[in-house]
């Protein structure tokens, strides 16, 4: 299988990249455009975005509603494809990746946290955290151990057997963060992770992100709140699909 070999090559890249990325940015975006629809009703969500994020940095994206923040983050997370422009992830243009290699990138390089958690309702916290490991091909006790370790990291070891509807909003988001971290990606993308949380829960989540940043993870987060953005090293402002 040709694509299979390519996929393994990409996997091998993951291992070799960190040494190089000290000089090249993890995320490098040039002239990024995204158009939804076509003709007179077309929406230009991104109109030429340039952005570089270096390894281990903590970036907050701010901007008015509809300015294109989520669109940008989805492209960065390889959940969506841009209409034009170049996106280099760890120095590799993502257009080179085929469907299966993209799946591998989402699984190993990127941890994504959604505003609305997106947990499987019928599965326990542990099963939810195990899910990316299932697709990574990990089995049995090793998978369990890693998932439990990730839950431990977000302080939810004692809630492993609970289902999402038995957890508070903050706890659910912490499960989602554990899930994003469990495969050990170098980069965490979070789309308004505290948007649905009260201030106490927000604090818990942000404290975890701070700790992850201290541990060397690259973090890109979208927020509306200046005090959240204040925790980041750098804030990027989006206005009508362009960076200010």
């Amino acid at each position, binding site marked *: 299988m040709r694509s299979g070999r390519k996929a393994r090559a990409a996997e091998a890249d993951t291992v070799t990249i960190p040494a190089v990325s000290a000089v090249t940015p993890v995320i490098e975006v040039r002239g990024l455009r995204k158009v939804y629809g076509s003709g007179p009703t077309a929406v230009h969500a991104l109109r030429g975005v340039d952005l570089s994020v270096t390894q281990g940095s903590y970036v907050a994206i701010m901007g008015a509603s509809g300015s294109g923040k989520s669109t940008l983050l989805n492209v960065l997370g390889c959940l969506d494809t841009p209409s034009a422009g170049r996106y280099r992830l760890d120095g590799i243009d993502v257009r080179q990746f085929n469907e299966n290699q993209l*799946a591998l990138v*989402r*699984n*190993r390089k990127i941890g994504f946290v*959604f505003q609305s958690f*997106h947990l499987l309702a019928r599965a326990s916290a542990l099963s939810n955290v195990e*899910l*990316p490991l299932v*697709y990574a091909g990990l089995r049995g006790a090793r998978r369990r151990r890693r998932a439990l370790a990730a839950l431990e990291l977000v302080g939810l070891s004692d809630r492993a057997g609970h289902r999402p509807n038995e957890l508070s909003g903050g706890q659910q988001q912490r499960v989602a963060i554990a899930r994003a971290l469990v*495969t050990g990606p170098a980069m965490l993308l979070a789309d308004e992770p505290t948007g649905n949380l009260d201030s106490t829960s927000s604090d818990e989540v942000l404290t975890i992100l701070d700790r992850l940043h201290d541990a060397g993870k690259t973090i890109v987060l979208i927020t509306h709140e200046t005090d959240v953005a204040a925790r980041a090293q750098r804030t990027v402002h989006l206005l009508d699909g362009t960076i200010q």
Partner: protein
Amino acid sequence: MSVLEVLRFALRGILANKMRSVLTILGIVIGVAAVILLTAMGNGAQSTIQSSIFSLGTDTLTITGKQPEGKDAPPAQPLTQQDVTALSDRTGTPDVSSVSPVTSGQANAARGTTTYHLQQVVGSTPSYFDANSAKVAAGAVFSEDDVAEARKVVVLGSTVAEKLFGQPAQAPGQQVLIDNLPFTVAGVLQRKGSGGIQTADDLAVAPLTTIQDTITGHDKLNQVLVKANSSNAVSAAQSEVSAILDDRHHITDPAKADYQVTNPQQLLSTINTTLDAFTTLLASIAGISLLVGGIGITNIMLVTVAERTREIGLRKALGARKGAILGQFLAESTVLSLLGGGIGVLLGFLGSQIRIGQLQPAVSVDSVILAVGVSVLIGLFFGSYPANRAASLRPIEALRHE
């Protein structure tokens, strides 16, 4: 992702909506059970009819007289004792083992105050019993001497013996009145019972000469039974018999013959062909219901995929390959159809234990393999369309789905 993992996800998906899964399975259950049951009924009918033909003997030809067709046809020449004598000459009929003339009529039988109307009183020779595969349960059959002397002895069918004597075993040696003439019961026949032809046990057999003297007269025979040397020699015996009768009855055109030879093996193969067509018809009707069940699975899989689009988006966002998603949904629809197939086989088996009149359904292994095979293929085939649609979605499209 291991096969076990795929199966676990599939089972979780099925159990998540039990009622719907049950209804989907029901479609397949009914389809598979119908295929198995209906073909079993076809097979049962076939073997019932076959065994009733076998019980009459498959190596005995039956010759009957008939009016030849066509306006200018000469008057038919009846079957006579001379025909029997000619057929009995082994130089012309080397493949024939016995020839039995048969005359038959109706009569009233009586014993004391008990009377019974005999639908069939047969006059023949001792070889008649062998030609008909009839065996005695008590007493003995009459002898050639009895025929030569036209003695009033009779062998009763089991139904007649029961009606007149209650205990058939006590009948031999006793007297019975047939059309007010006293006959001595020589023996009672074993029950044939095997469905279809009701008269097999409802008859009385006496020497040919006796019956001709008393009931039917001497001018003609109703039938001549010709037993072949073996079941392989039936066709040869048939052509020998036809050659002799054509000669004696001056037949040049077989289409204008005034007699008819019934070959049980031909009859059997004709009936088999008809019943095969019948079974195929039943099976195809059942096949349609299986197809409908399959469409049910497609429908459910489409609904399931639509409902779970966000879940699919999430799985893809977490790194699921297209193959993993495809596998999960295919496994789901295959497990559904396998479950339905399994329960259907079970129901088909249970249903075919029930006897319908003379008919005992017989399950054929072919139909089970076919039905289960088809139901799995249905799962794969009908499941693959919605599964493929689900797996091809971009993660963000799927996640945004409401």
